[in-house]
């Protein structure tokens, strides 16, 4: 116990105890703030490089580091020193506050993502529902930000973003349901542990396809990037953002990309499991980056779908496939085929 008023050496002991505690290390270094920031910085460079290679360009090159890897730093410095322009008659508190909330909402779910057997901040019993609850707050934030911009293009982009994300949330949840049934738990650590013998991509392949397409729509990635369709809406719902606000929104979006990729890794690709010569978190990050690559590549390959195609695919195809897969999973579990893998 620490007395009151505490002696100086007691205060030092307390600070050292806090700094070396498991929770502190996990929140600040890995898998918390510093790791997330570094990965987001890396992903912005990585996406530009991948897209450049697809289009037979070179991409960032001159900013320093191998392959211009320091380009995001240069971009960051540029954006921070730019003036933040708030549009005429815009709602200032919302316009400046929502981007911060977007980063926050994208970062908080990482508390329950297991990067390794011991590398998880909060071993929450309802981890998967927590992640879905947090991501379900994105569309309303985006619409409020678009409304606060007081401009036509952001507003139209915000409305599109809202109906797109709300429509694709449902197939996403339903397709994750079969994984929950296979693992018998909503805890992401337990879900990963259940995949020690077989990754869930094998017994729940249809779910994987549906989930992957749904997160592409959730992330507003091509071919589903209607909310930021450049030829129609300038840049969609963040048209009016500039300087540091733009940087915050981009950080939020890339963090969400990383979040969704890691969710695919946890649910379908066996999480931290891999051959023992590499540490578990490294396997996790490698798998996640592979998933992120497959989310990025379509941006350089496919054209954009129409609004009606998007909505029809979401409600009439993906949802039905996901529901059918739930029944298929029940059959698989009841037939006992999966018993050899301990499911």
């Amino acid at each position, binding site marked *: 116990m620490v007395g009151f008023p505490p002696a100086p050496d007691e205060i030092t002991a307390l600070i050292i105890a806090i700094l070396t505690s498991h929770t502190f290390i996990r929140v600040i270094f890995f898998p918390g703030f510093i790791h997330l920031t570094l990965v987001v910085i890396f992903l912005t460079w990585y996406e530009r490089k991948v897209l450049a290679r697809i289009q037979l360009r070179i991409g960032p090159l001159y900013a320093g580091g191998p392959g211009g890897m320091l380009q995001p730093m240069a971009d960051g410095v540029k954006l921070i020193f730019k003036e933040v322009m708030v549009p005429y008659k815009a709602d200032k508190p919302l316009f400046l506050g929502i981007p911060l909330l977007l980063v926050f909402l994208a970062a908080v779910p990482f508390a329950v993502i297991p990067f390794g057997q011991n590398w998880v901040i909060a071993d929450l*019993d309802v981890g998967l529902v927590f992640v879905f*609850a*947090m991501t*379900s707050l994105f569309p309303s934030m985006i*619409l409020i930000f678009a409304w606060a911009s007081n401009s036509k293009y952001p507003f139209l982009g915000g409305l599109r973003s809202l109906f797109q994300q709300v429509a694709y949330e449902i197939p996403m949840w339903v397709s994750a349901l079969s994984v929950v049934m296979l693992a018998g738990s909503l805890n992401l650590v337990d879900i990963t542990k259940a995949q020690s013998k077989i990754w869930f991509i094998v017994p729940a392949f249809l779910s994987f396809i549906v989930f992957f397409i749904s997160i592409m729509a959730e992330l507003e990635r091509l071919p589903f990037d209607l909310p930021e369709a450049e030829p129609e809406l300038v840049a969609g719902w963040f048209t009016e953002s500039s300087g540091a606000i733009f940087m915050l929104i981009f950080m939020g979006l890339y963090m969400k990309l990383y979040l969704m990729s890691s969710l695919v890794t946890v649910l379908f690709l066996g999480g931290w499991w891999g051959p023992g010569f590499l540490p578990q978190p490294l396997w996790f990050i490698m798998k996640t980056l592979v998933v992120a690559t497959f989310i990025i590549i379509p941006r350089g390959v496919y054209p954009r779908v129409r609004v009606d195609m998007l909505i029809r695919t979401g409600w009439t195809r993906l949802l039905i496939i996901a529901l059918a897969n739930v029944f298929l999973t029940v059959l698989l579990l009841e037939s006992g085929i999966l018993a050899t893998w301990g499911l």
Partner: protein
Amino acid sequence: MELVVPPDLVFVILAAVTLIAAIMALQAKELIYGAISLGISFIGIAGFFVFLDAPYLAMLQIAVYVGAIVVLILFTIMLVRREEADELVDRAERGEGAVGLWLAGLLAVSIAGVAALVGPSLPNTPPTANLPVSSLGPVLATEYPVPLVILALLISAALLGALVLAKLEK
């Protein structure tokens, strides 16, 4: 070395956030601020569920109420023309306040009455802390199958109703 927060303090803060946000939701001049306040109020209620050791319910509260109901309200606000919305606000301010006050008073009196009647027996409910989520399903399927089926029927009826309404529009 663990920071211990008195439970009463948590309750008071949660109650204050929920109530103030709920009042703001009704009093906001700008409709969108009302919707945001409603969302904050729902998050406060989710906090109560966490406080009551029901994290699953809390997460669903956020996902369904903040993630879907508030979105629905936002959609409605965006699609209603500005003048109509202002007219609605004006009408609400004219005389319905007294009715609201009456209803709130009635609710307070009835809650106080119920509390006075059955109050002492309430804290004796068995503690349910640290139950895993997976124990929820068996309880629903074995102890409350009839309410579950009725709920399912209600939801399908609502779905069919929505379909019929959508067809009528054509």
